[in-house]
């Protein structure tokens, strides 16, 4: 029972039924009193009509005597000398005008009567009609209303209960889904879209939203799982190497440590630090706190600066850097982060192309592209390379976080990243082109 009472739909239907009862009762009461008033008015009119007909001289006295036998109507006369004709007692004539009386009080049968007393020629004339027919009418009206009320009440409760149970079942499925998800079944869904309905209601929408949220949560949880596994894997190698080197130094402390060994130690330590540094930065970026400091920044000027910084490294390795920078390209952003984004894209291109490759840096109207003519990335892996620690090859000194940071920075700036084949794609050398499209800025405002 308490479970039933907890159901919101049933509670609503109960409340509605209660409101309906109160409203109908008020309406019924008003209807009954209006009807009875109207009926009494009607009787009063009839009484008055009869009275006027009888009020003529001597007619009243005759009528009173004549009406003696009439059951439903009584006519009486009180002459000026105090003699009463008809069934009435003297008390009936004390008050002029119409009123409802109990029969006993005025000498009639014990029932409710409508009494009219008027001045007539030679005394007072009293005419009374039994109200029994009116009471009967009122009773019928009242009982009809009562029956309708009861039937409606039961129907209301039954419909409310039915809807409530149905909604409860759907709600229960949602809650059960959430429970299953909470206990670790990441595939739990309400499967609301399977419900064949023409017009989905709010519960369908809620279930659908739950499914969407669970989709995202599952992706996040799995990403987190991958991330921790990858992080552990990523750190295992440098830490193992560190341990070996430290152990070698510890057991070999008589001899002076090789400078190379110490450099190696520092190098591995730096690598671990760099991984944490990048992870913390990405986490920090994901909070979006830095957006408050965004200013209008010229992407073209920044790209030119980074091209000048990286050109010697790129050209020194036998690669070619081609730039096509059209400025100013004003975007709202953080200069430090945007320079990190461009640097990461360039370093990614350097790391994944063979010597002699061509790397391109292009900026035009809110869009920045870094492309190369290296081996490229198969289309099905393109989304995943933006995830932390995802690698297309197992080699490399990189932290595996460069492109993840690019994505975090792009997300923070509301920019969209698109990966495609390079501009000079050929079989076996598809190349890669990463385009970052920023939201359109205000070209009137230069930095």
């Amino acid at each position: 029972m308490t479970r039933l009472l907890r159901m919101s739909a049933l509670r609503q239907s109960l409340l509605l039924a209660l409101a309906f009862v109160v409203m109908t009762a008020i309406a019924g009461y008003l209807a009954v009193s209006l009807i009875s008033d109207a009926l009494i008015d009607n009787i009063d009119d009839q009484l008055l009509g009869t009275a006027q007909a009888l009020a003529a001289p001597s007619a009243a006295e005759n009528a009173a005597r004549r009406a003696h036998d009439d059951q439903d109507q009584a006519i009486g006369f009180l002459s000026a000398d105090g003699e009463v004709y008809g069934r009435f007692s003297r008390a009936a004539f004390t008050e002029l005008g119409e009123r409802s009386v109990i029969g006993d009080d005025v000498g009639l049968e014990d029932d409710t009567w409508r009494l009219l007393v008027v001045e007539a020629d030679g005394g007072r004339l009293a005419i009374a009609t039994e109200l029994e027919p009116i009471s009967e009418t009122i009773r019928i009206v009242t009982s009809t209303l009562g029956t309708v009320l009861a039937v409606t009440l039961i129907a209301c409760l039954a419909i409310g209960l039915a809807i409530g149970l149905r909604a409860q079942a759907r709600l229960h499925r949602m809650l059960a889904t959430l429970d299953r998800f909470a206990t670790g079944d990441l595939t739990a869904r309400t499967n609301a879209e399977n419900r064949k309905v023409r017009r989905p209601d709010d519960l369908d929408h809620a279930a659908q939203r739950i499914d969407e949220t669970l989709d995202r949560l599952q992706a996040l949880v799995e990403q987190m799982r991958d991330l921790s596994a990858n992080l552990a894997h990523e750190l295992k190698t440098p830490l193992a190497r560190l341990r070996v080197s430290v152990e070698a130094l510890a057991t070999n402390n008589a001899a002076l440590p090789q400078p190379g060994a110490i450099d190696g130690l520092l190098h591995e330590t730096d690598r671990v630090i760099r991984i944490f540094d990048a992870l913390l930065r990405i986490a920090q970026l994901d909070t979006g706190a830095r957006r408050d400091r965004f200013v209008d920044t010229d992407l073209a000027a920044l790209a030119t600066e980074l091209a000048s910084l990286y050109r010697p490294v790129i050209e020194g390795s036998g690669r070619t850097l081609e730039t096509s920078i059209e400025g100013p390209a004003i975007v709202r952003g953080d200069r430090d982060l945007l320079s990190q984004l461009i640097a990461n894209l360039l370093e990614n291109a350097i790391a994944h192309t063979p010597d002699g490759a061509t790397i391109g840096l292009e900026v035009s109207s809110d869009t920045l592209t870094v492309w190369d003519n290296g081996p490229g990335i198969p289309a099905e892996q393109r989304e995943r390379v933006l995830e932390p620690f995802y690698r297309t090859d197992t080699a490399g000194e990189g932290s595996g976080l460069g492109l993840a940071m690019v994505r975090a920075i792009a997300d923070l700036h509301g920019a969209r990243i698109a990966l495609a084949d390079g501009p000079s794609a050929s079989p076996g050398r598809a190349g890669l082109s990463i385009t970052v499209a920023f939201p359109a800025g205000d070209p009137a405002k230069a930095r």
Partner: protein
Amino acid sequence: MKVLVLEDDPELGPWVQSGLRQQGHVVDLVTDGREALVTATTQTYDVLILDRMTPSLDGLSVLKSLRAAKIMAPALFLTAISGVDDRVEGLEAGADDYLTKPFAMSELTARVAALGRRAPQTAGEDTVLRAADLELDLVRRTAIRQGQVLDLNPKEFVLLEVFLRNQRRVLTRTMLLERVWDLHFDPMTSVVETHVSRLRAKIDKPFATPLIRTVRGAGYMLDPDAASNSTDAPRP
């Protein structure tokens, strides 16, 4: 130089203190923000090194109070990695430099040395900078060594200018990246090294004595004395 270090970490504080002492600095170490504020107002320091997160009063508030009290000693912030905004906030509070933890001692000593002598350096607005037989004309944008005009591109010119303004001082890769390119990140590839080696190829290689030398594990230094008495072979 007299250096005040505000650092509450029981490992890091003494490590910084001893590292700077080895460089010949006089170092006072305090672990509490209020203590730092009192010490810095009652004594004169050449450089202040402040940690961001310290007990009783954080480093940022300490520096703001000091600057409000017109104590303008150059200040360097030590910031945590995750504090992406720390650099900007620190500079807004009146800091002159910042360093992200964890850092190499060579990086800290190089930056402290640069800070300590920054004031007199920037005071004189020389239009010609000299080191040994090298001359850099900032107005005409020309570099001449031993009477030969050196063909430098604009970035190489700025790089050389930074070296000449910081003679006999170690400049780390990140310091060069900040001062020449105004970029604040840690590149994975050896971009700065490549630029320095290109500059050396132009200003040192054709001549008998190199001016710029590599400081192991730290960075580079332009040493005019080396040009006059060193027999060090030019590096590639």
